């Protein structure tokens, strides 16, 4: 008993000592607020967007929003923008949410993170917001929950398969293959001309992981439509996806050396230098590739996974998306900002400056060639929405395929580990 009292006294004492500092911080805040002055309402909006490389663009857009909010509603908005790097973003965001310190607006990964964050009750329902009507039909599903609610506005959307070196392909007179057999022929032809078909970069587990959404996505689309649903009920198994190893083996047998030593950066450098004709990677690496060789001509093509040409499809997904915290005290302003992201006049320049793909009809700027490549397939209907495989399963597949490549695990080991990971996901997220 005595110990408890003592403990409480210590805590109380510490609280008084430290509260002094807290007050100081607050008083400076108030000063800042009052100099804004007048009768205007003032609001402090906290945002969390893990893309420090775009700080300038965001700052500019936020400043425009602040001006608009002042003009339209006479609200003084001050925005505190937190921008950690993506490596740590999820960890920081989770810690903030867990300590009841949710930012008013935060960025999260649409396919990977929306389901669990929504389930835990952190995301505000945005279905009635005006921006929803402006979203392209191909984009909307990525930010819609299983029960049909839109909970985020997408910023970064991606249409991808693998990357190929257009110069090498033209020189060799080949086009992106549409079946696995054709892919084999392409690799043989490249090898005959002493060109390594594939750049391999498996040092970071998330790169081999890319195979799963590509292969599983295509297999689901062509005849296994309820796979995700069944997995969520513990009724399916990854043995149904075993054929994904066919293409993986082909890639690995015809790739560059020492793949487990090569990270994304090195991979981009190797691909730009023409050390391989194709690379299992998405167009999000465009910037890095062009930094290595500004004249590099590359394209995006769908990855063939078997001999059914209809299964050779482009993956459509969304990553960085903005959500509103359910606990925000500044809901009105937060919603205004979310809608401002798709503002009829300002949004076009904003998305263009970020080099993101268009997500709405109000976006009329010219896209990059590799985006247009993918669009051709999408317009032909040769595309599918990225399947909603839990993040933890994707993490597991990355590590599993790394170990498979290094010869530590067999195909069955990998598939078993994936089944276990999904079952564990079901158990935890009941």
């Amino acid at each position: 008993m005595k110990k408890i009292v003592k403990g409480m006294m210590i805590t109380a004492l510490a609280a008084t000592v430290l509260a002094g500092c807290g007050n100081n911080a607050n008083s400076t805040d108030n000063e800042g607020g009052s100099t804004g002055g007048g009768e205007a309402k003032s609001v402090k909006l906290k945002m969390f967007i893990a893309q420090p490389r775009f700080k300038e663009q965001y700052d500019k857009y936020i400043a425009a929003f602040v001006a608009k909010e002042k003009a339209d509603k006479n609200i003084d908005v001050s925005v505190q923008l937190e921008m950690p790097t993506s490596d740590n973003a999820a960890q920081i965001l989770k810690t903030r949410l867990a300590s009841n310190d949710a930012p008013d607006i935060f960025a999260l990964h649409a396919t990977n993170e929306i389901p669990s964050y929504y389930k835990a009750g952190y995301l505000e329902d945005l279905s009635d917001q005006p921006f929803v009507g402006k979203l392209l039909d191909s984009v909307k599903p990525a930010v819609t929950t299983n029960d049909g609610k839109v909970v985020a506005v997408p910023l970064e959307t991606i249409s991808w398969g693998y990357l190929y070196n257009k110069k090498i392909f033209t020189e060799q007179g080949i086009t992106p293959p549409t079946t696995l057999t054709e892919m084999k022929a392409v690799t043989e032809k490249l090898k005959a001309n002493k060109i390594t078909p594939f750049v391999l970069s498996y040092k970071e587990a998330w790169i081999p992981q890319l195979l799963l959404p590509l292969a599983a996505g295509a297999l689901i689309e062509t005849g296994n439509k309820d796979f995700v649903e069944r997995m969520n009920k513990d009724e399916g198994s990854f043995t149904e996806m075993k054929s994904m190893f066919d293409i993986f083996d082909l890639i690995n047998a015809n790739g560059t050396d020492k793949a487990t030593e090569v990270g994304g950066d090195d991979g981009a450098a190797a691909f730009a230098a023409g050390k391989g004709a194709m690379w299992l990677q998405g167009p999000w690496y465009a910037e890095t590739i062009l930094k290595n060789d500004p004249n590099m001509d590359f394209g995006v093509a769908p990855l063939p996974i078997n001999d059914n040409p209809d299964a050779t499809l482009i993956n459509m997904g969304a990553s960085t998306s903005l959500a509103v915290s359910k606990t925000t005290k500044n809901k009105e302003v937060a919603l205004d900002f979310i809608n401002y992201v798709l503002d009829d006049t300002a949004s076009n320049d904003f998305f263009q400056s970020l080099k993101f793909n268009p997500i709405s009809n109000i976006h009329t700027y010219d896209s990059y060639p590799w985006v247009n490549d993918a669009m051709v397939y999408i317009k032909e209907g040769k595309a599918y929405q990225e399947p909603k495989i839990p993040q933890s399963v994707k993490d597991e597949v990355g590590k599993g395929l790394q170990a498979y490549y290094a010869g530590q695990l067999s195909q069955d080991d990998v598939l078993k580990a994936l089944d276990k990971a999904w079952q564990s996901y079901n158990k935890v997220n009941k």
Partner: protein
Amino acid sequence: MPTKSYKKYISLFTFVAPAFILYAVFLLIPTISGMVYSFTDWNGLNRNYDFIGFGNFVEALTEDPDFVGSLLFTLKYVVFMVVLQNVFALLLAVFIESRRKTKGFFRTIFFMPNMISTIISAFMWTFVFAQVLPQLAEKTALTFLDQAWIGDPKVSFFSILTVSLWNGVGYMMIIYLAGLQGVPQSLKEAARIDGANAFQTFRNVTLPMITHAITICFFLTLNGAFKVFEVVYGLTGGGPGRSTQVITMNIYEEAFSNNFRYGYASAKSVILFIIILIFTFIQIQVMKRREVEA
């Protein structure tokens, strides 16, 4: 007598209070609440959780081969680090102590790796292993340099050790140097006059005088090696697969990627804490006996 002991406690309290209050608020209380989570099934995101007793602990030790694997890998790393780091640091300290003009220069150079951020220097080393060594192999015909230094788990264990030593030896060296400076020159000279060679002087005069520094360094190395994270994260990321995953990485993965099982991850860190505690306890007991003998 009672008043005196009362006074003694007041005095103890006033001296210790400033440190203890801040320590209690920012370390002790958070540690205890972390331990409380280890008995729950909290997943880090949900607002609700249930107490599940020792379930997490049982699961970690009996149903989680990845955790046990990372534990064994870490133990192997700890053994190598404790021995090598201290041997190298002590050797360097003795050698540097024997220099006159170049003492400051060498001390600065060997300490320099500590001055830059570990995580960035680990990334630097990946370039050394993946690009520089193969290039050197090409130029010098030292073909053994052309290896999968960070891609093959058998080799990458030693790469991880190399970088850890590069990073850690300077730190321990400073402590040994401080210890060596406390050894009176007169004692060493007396030994020399008595006909002892350099090694005998070191073994019989210097070493007993610096046992306290050795205790500190062993303690710090042991503790640091069990909690290694950044070097491995930067070099191999724990891969390929989980073949070089250390225990802190396994905990981190459990808490923040995988399924965010924060309660389960907390249980794993409690296990880690207990393991370090046991090892440290044994180490200090052994060292204390040594100190007394000396």
